[in-house]
């Protein structure tokens, strides 16, 4: 699946639920499966401080593609990170830097990515893109 198809697949998954709590149950389940950064690797340079929750992000560039590892102390934040990673992992830096992440809004999670939310996610997406730009 390409960048757009991956996002459409997530939108479809979420469209099965009408109820907010069910959507969040899915996000929480995703948060439990995320590939975490080992605690010895959780260094300050990977920490993104948010007012509400903290996020750690590690980026790898391999064979022309980007791979991300991340973690958060809040499980909902972790679930949203896991969605971002699903979409962005294995993509070329150019795609990540230039293409729109439209699924966030479509599934109704844009509030988590608003600058006022201060949960570290906005900064994380920015840093994911900046890390991609370094290799583009």
């Amino acid at each position, binding site marked *: 699946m390409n960048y757009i198809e991956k996002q459409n697949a997530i939108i479809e998954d979420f469209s099965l639920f009408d109820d907010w709590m069910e959507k*969040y149950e899915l996000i929480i389940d995703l948060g439990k499966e995320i590939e975490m950064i080992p605690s010895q690797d959780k260094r300050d340079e990977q920490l993104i401080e948010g007012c*509400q929750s903290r996020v750690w992000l590690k980026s790898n560039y391999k064979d022309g593609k980007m791979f991300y590892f991340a973690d958060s102390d809040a*499980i*909902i*934040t972790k679930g949203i990170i896991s969605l971002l990673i699903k979409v962005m992992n294995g993509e070329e830096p150019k795609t990540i830097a230039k293409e729109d992440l439209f699924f966030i809004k479509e599934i109704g999670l844009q509030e988590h990515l608003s600058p006022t939310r201060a949960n570290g996610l906005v900064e994380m997406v920015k840093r994911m893109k900046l890390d991609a730009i370094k290799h583009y």
Partner: protein
Amino acid sequence: MKDTTQSRIAVQDIRSQFPILTQKVNGRDLIYFDNAATSQKPLIVIDKIKNYYEKENANIHRGVHSLSQEATTAYEQARQKISSYLNAKSDSEIIFTKGTTDGINLIASSFGELLSPGDEIIISAMEHHSNIVPWQLLESRKKIKLKVVPIHKSGEIDLNAFEKLLNEKTKLVSITHISNSLGIINPINEIIRKSHLVGAKVLIDGAQSIQHEKIDLQELNCDFFVFSGHKVYGPTGVGVLYGKSELLNIMPPYQGGGDMIEKVSFEKTTFNVLPFKFEAGTPNIVGGIALGTAFDFIDSLNFEQCQVHELELLRYAEAQLNAIPTIKIFGTSKNKTSVISFNVGDIHPFDIGTLLDKQGVAVRTGHHCTQPIMDFYQIPGTIRVSFSIYNTKGEIDLFVAALNKSIQILS
């Protein structure tokens, strides 16, 4: 919502005066338990603001035309009303500010100018960042020393430590009346009395007490008292700094501009009398007037019965929360207002707050602008519920059900 409280106030009548409470949030009835952050506004305050812009708007002081005079009268009547509600000695001791933070910064800047290197200011470990940072800035500007009174595990202030910190170098003690993150009521009468014995002045941060406690400034005998309008059913962007006139008179102006001057020339500028000396520029006119109306609203209530009602809500919610085995409440003093800060096991407060929001319950999560308290308890933050006069036990039942559902999903 069913009113099952024992206090003799008609909660449904009060609720009907707050239009926002009929809102739906995420498809559910709004349960607003974030009152320590800001209170909702009664219709009488909302109407006042609307009416002012529709019929009374003009710039105040100095205008010769009728509208300006009417607006000036309304603004100054609001000041008188607030002064009399708080039992200040004189209306001129009531300075309109932008809010609590603005009031504290005014004192730090202006009263701070009277301090000398080596002078000491005492605050407590439970202060809001607004009552920490202005003093840290003053510390680096004027080479004064900032001393911090520790708190006990219960969240109560360590009065023995406080007394040990007090000395002849202490020039100001700046303490919150009620902790915004724990809800604990500080023994300010004792703090004020002991501070005065060494000649220190006392600033009380009333941001969390003005809506819950009856304040009598002359009886309290503090030197400064600050609060925000929006926490006491008034609009945002307006607040009050009370100061004893003998102090305000010797303090230099905070900001320069219109209204605060008596005469301006390039050779010598002289300043206006109190309170105008500290009110540079066009003030938040409608804010001041509507804050006066907010105190009219309070006057229309049976304040003592409202206090009983809030205390009942506190006890009822505490009992319900304590029945959930993984819950830990922070701030366990008996002397508390209707604020509960808690965590659930290892679950992050942000996760609980997000799921409660999706069920229509508005709470606050995080460090509540009191990071030192969170460091003290070694936690990232708490979930804080705070009740007001319009909340009900029925709402607490719904909140606890929503909380249990959130815990179940997150565990």
